[in-house]
């Protein structure tokens, strides 16, 4: 039995969201996305375990992120509370984002 090695370096953008994203606070979220987009990340990891609320204004920022960073960009939504998952499903965004318990 031999050794198989797979190696790669990725630029990963990590964003932790805690609290509530409504139309007002979505602006801060968008600003962070714009700031990170400049660095040209390969993947976007959203840590949302403590995200208590997100309205469609927040979802728009998620879509904006893909458009800004490239639609091929893999986005991971980590530890999304049930209600957040439900909203992503109702709006079809679960097709475009990886809803996971862990990034890696």
């Amino acid at each position, binding site marked *: 039995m031999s050794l198989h090695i797979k190696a790669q370096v990725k630029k990963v953008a990590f964003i932790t969201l805690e609290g*509530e994203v*409504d*139309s*007002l606070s979505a602006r801060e979220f968008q600003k962070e996305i714009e700031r990170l987009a400049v660095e040209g990340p390969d993947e976007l990891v959203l840590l949302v375990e403590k995200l208590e*609320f997100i*309205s*469609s*204004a927040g*979802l*728009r920022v998620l*879509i*904006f992120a*893909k*458009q800004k960073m490239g*639609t091929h960009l893999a986005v991971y939504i980590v530890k999304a509370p*049930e*209600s957040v998952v*439900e*909203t992503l499903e*109702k*709006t*079809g965004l679960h*097709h*475009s984002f990886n809803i996971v318990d862990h990034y890696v």
Partner: protein
Amino acid sequence: MDRITFPGTLDSLDGIRQLVKAQAQQAGLEKKPTYQLLLAIDEIATNIITHGYEAAGTEGPLDVLMELTDGQLCVTLEDEAAAFDPLKHQMPTEEFFALPLEERPIGGMGIHLTVNGVDEFRYEYAGNRNRNIFIVKTGAADAPA
């Protein structure tokens, strides 16, 4: 029925959520339908503020009315912006939500989430005011028999 008046600006959203959340908890509404109700109200309130007042360059009030009756919680948002019936707006189809993001318009999720988030959603226009009405079944009767 209490009427609480907020300014029709985005920084009212947080207070409106807190107000409705407190009432929903008092009504014994479960966590999930409470979340869906708050989301629906947030979506419509946002539309009133941005599409109703801001886009028209006007300002105005956003009133919240809440009524708890046997087995249901009724929340009404009232505003003085131009008449707009969300239910008359072309709703996105299933196909829309299945589109890849590149081919999909960025908006159009708010009314969809609203209508799908409450047991009943109604719109009325009366006395120069839009009335967006959200009704959820609380499952529990208001007063024990």
